């Protein structure tokens, strides 16, 4: 069996992935990627105090000592629904009726237009366990 290194596999992948480009927005370690539809098998997630929280920063001893608030990427708008795809665990959001603002304490907000988006959290490689990037 012929061995193909990953960058070669990437080179020969079909080009339809990039042919019709959909909008993508990045806020720190969170990427919103526009999709055509929600996954068939999904479960709606609850909001926390009226917020759709996409990611939270880790609780650290230093943060507790200095009484720094825990940072998070969130939508405070009521027109945002939050879903998890069954099986894969991918997170999706659906924004209805106009734009909603994606907020964070350390980043500028992004006004995201109505649509369906997949939420991708930045990761980093580790020989034993893959990890999320620090917020």
């Amino acid at each position: 069996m012929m061995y193909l290194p990953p960058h070669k596999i990437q080179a020969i992948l079909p080009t339809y992935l990039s042919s019709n480009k959909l909008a993508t927005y990045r806020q720190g370690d969170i990427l919103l990627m526009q999709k055509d539809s929600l996954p068939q098998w999904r479960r709606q997630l609850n909001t926390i105090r009226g917020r759709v929280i996409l990611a939270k920063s880790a609780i650290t001893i230093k943060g507790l000592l200095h009484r720094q608030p825990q940072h998070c990427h969130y939508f405070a708008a009521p027109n945002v629904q939050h879903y998890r795809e069954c099986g894969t665990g991918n997170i999706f959001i659906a924004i209805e009726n106009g734009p909603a603002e994606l907020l964070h304490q350390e980043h500028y907000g992004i006004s995201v237009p109505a649509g369906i988006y997949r939420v991708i959290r930045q990761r980093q490689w580790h020989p034993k366990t893959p990890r999320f990037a620090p917020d």
Partner: protein
Amino acid sequence: MYVLYLITLATVVFVVFSLTHAIAAIFFGTDIVLWLQFQMFRLRIWTRPNYLNASLIRVLEPAQRDYALERFGYDRYIQSLQIKPDNYDERYGYLYKFNILNERYTVVRVINASPEDDNSYSVHYLRVPNHIRFAHEAVAWTFHLTTKEYDPDIET
């Protein structure tokens, strides 16, 4: 007399620690010994902030090395050994590749698009797989995407 006292004390401490580890190994297995050693290493770093340096990191065992590198910071390690970037992209940052003993490290340097309170831009180093050759490819990999797919319209 003082030297004799020190030697005796060191011997007693050594024997007590060895016995503790041996007893722990007998009752709980060898994993607990590795865990104890790692916790002692963490305690050493915690109590002595200037303990770590680049040449020490190069001789540590893999688990301790990864932890030490994160605590010491990839930026300080790269600066102290004057490692040159393997690839540079104006938009996506720097890609560094270096070896420590027999392990290959590939690290991408990314900068926040939004400024901090003091108008500085915080820098993050993310480890990526070793087959990656370009900074753009590395940043795309961190978002589970390919180079063609990763081209965000707005970044903050």
